[in-house]
């Protein structure tokens, strides 16, 4: 199912927000990664690390005014950043779709859910509303909404949170896109529903061969779903690796810290080890490591020289003083 030619190749993506009266802010700073067909790739990091901006930049959904996007976003050989507004609009929803964080506010409150599904089919498949209705019901059934023929007439407020997220996934998958971007799809849901939605996403991705970019701050989500994980900090990728090696021996102190902040049932009595400080404490990447002020093991070099992303054996790491692999 997986081939080697990448479906999506993001190269040196940089997003700069212009700020009135201040230095422009680089929200995403030279991010590069690839997604192969059928692969699930995670983008992990705290709030403000640039993961959502990355996804919006790929979709071409950032407001044009005040933002500069540079680099390349190659999707099947086309640089999406160079497409015209109309061409990009034709691709969104058809080739690349997105599932958002809050399932309630992402649905139009005054339009029945079924119509919101058929709308995409009408738009990209040229179907009539009438012809699209059974297809929409089928999609709702596939994402596990019971009694879809009745539910299709429901308004979003008549559905539960989990059901709404299922509906959103159905809408996103309506035109069988080759790439699905899920931006924290489980954050607004409670734990049991989270597990259901993740299982559903995994199943759908495996069934349809859709590639998935999973954007999350939740390493638990990543652990269960992603083939490859990119850890972002301050707009740059600080560590990348396949799921198991990355979780087994995280090399970057930030990744290590993220893993240490997760409560574990098998470590009774141990205290959690949170990462001190917040993203606001960042140093500029220009001549330092942005994470240095919060790092557990900074060395002098960290505040003087910008670390580069070094790749070896399928892992990539941006650190002067990586965590030692326990032997």
């Amino acid at each position, binding site marked *: 199912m997986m081939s080697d030619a990448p479906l999506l190749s993001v190269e040196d993506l940089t997003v700069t927000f212009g700020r009135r009266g201040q230095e422009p802010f680089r929200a995403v700073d030279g991010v590069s990664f690839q997604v192969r067909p059928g692969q699930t790739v995670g983008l992990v990091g705290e709030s403000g690390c640039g993961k959502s901006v990355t996804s919006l930049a790929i*979709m071409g*959904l950032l407001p044009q005014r005040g933002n500069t996007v540079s680099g390349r976003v190659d999707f099947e050989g086309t640089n999406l950043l160079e497409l015209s507004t109309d061409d990009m609009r034709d691709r969104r929803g058809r080739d690349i779709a997105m599932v958002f964080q*809050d399932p309630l506010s992402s649905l*139009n409150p005054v339009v029945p859910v079924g119509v919101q599904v058929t709308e995409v089919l009408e*738009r990209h498949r040229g179907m009539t509303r009438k012809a699209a209705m059974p297809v929409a019901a089928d999609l709702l059934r596939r994402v596990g909404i019971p009694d879809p023929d009745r539910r299709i007439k429901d308004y979003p*407020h008549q559905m539960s949170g989990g059901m709404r997220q299922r509906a959103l996934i159905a809408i996103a998958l309506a035109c069988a896109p080759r790439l699905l971007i899920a931006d924290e799809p489980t954050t607004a849901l409670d734990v049991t529903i989270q597990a259901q939605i993740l299982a559903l996403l995994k199943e759908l991705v495996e069934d349809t061969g859709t590639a998935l970019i999973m954007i999350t701050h939740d390493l638990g989500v990543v652990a269960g779903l992603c083939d490859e994980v990119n850890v972002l900090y301050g707009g740059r990728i600080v560590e990348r690796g396949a799921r198991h090696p990355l979780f087994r021996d995280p090399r970057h102190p930030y990744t290590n810290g993220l893993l240490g902040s997760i409560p574990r049932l098998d470590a009774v009595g141990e205290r959690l080890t949170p990462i001190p400080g917040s993203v606001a404490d960042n140093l500029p990447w220009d001549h330092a490591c942005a994470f240095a002020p919060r790092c557990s093991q900074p060395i002098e070099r960290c505040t003087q020289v910008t670390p580069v992303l070094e790749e070896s054996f399928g892992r990539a790491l941006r650190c002067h003083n990586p965590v030692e692999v326990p032997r």
Partner: protein
Amino acid sequence: MTDPLTSYGQSRKARIDALAATSVAESGTVEEAPGLSLIASAWQRLRRNPVFLLGAFITVAFVLLALVAPWVAPHDPAVGYLLDKVRPQSNPVPGPEPGFPLGADSRGRDLLSRLIVGARQTLIVGVFATLGGFLGGLVLGTLAGAFGGWVDSLVMRIVDVMLSIPSLLLAVSISALATRPSQWTVILAIAIVQIPVFARLLRGSMLSQRSSDHVLAARALGIKQSAIVFRHMLPNALGPVIVQATLVLAVAIIDAAALSFLGLGNPDDRKPEWGQMLGQSQQYLADYPHLAFWPAACIIVVALGFTLMGESTREALDPKSRR
């Protein structure tokens, strides 16, 4: 020193913007008890609100009366039945007598019948003026809110200029321009005056829709701009504007009465109108105040009814006022 006109305009603008802001949360995220929509929960509260019930009662009674006016009015409002009782020197206004409970006006026409038939004129003016203002505001507000950029700036500057002029002054100026004043010049003048109120309100809630999650989601699906504006933004933005319409109806009725009172309305007094009746009663005000009292009371009660209904609806739909 601040220019009184400017600060007046600014306070109006601020009021309208505050109104648009209260509707943001309401239309965007509806966090409700399961299965109870915003409208349904608002209705739950309204049903037990005496202020709303009073307003609704007055409004419904007024509309019904206006609809059936020609059939309930005891006499033809244009015929001077008591004309032979009118004595210009000793008795210019005939008093009540059997069949004419409120007496007649200076031309011997039945006052009660004129009040009843006048309800119809008042309703016509109020509804059409509000409708005109609503439609004009709908077009301008949608343009400004949907496109943003220079279209927004242009439309909103025009609106700002109109808002900076007191509405009645503007209405008087517009209707004074008409060569032949009629009911329709009054309607037109009041409609134009109400356009900026609607436009600004709608633009505000369109803007909040534009940055909402579901519009972003629709854009992420490649939905066409026109469909985003008309299916995803406009229907969600209309709520506060429709509520505002009930309030504007009251203002329109009062303004229409004012224009007729000043003689800028329909000069043909065979079609009675409350403001016009009020205007004609001026010269007898000292001796026969009842001539002015009845039409004035009608105007006040009807305007109050619409205002009470509109205000309580707005409050019920405002998420901040929820308990």
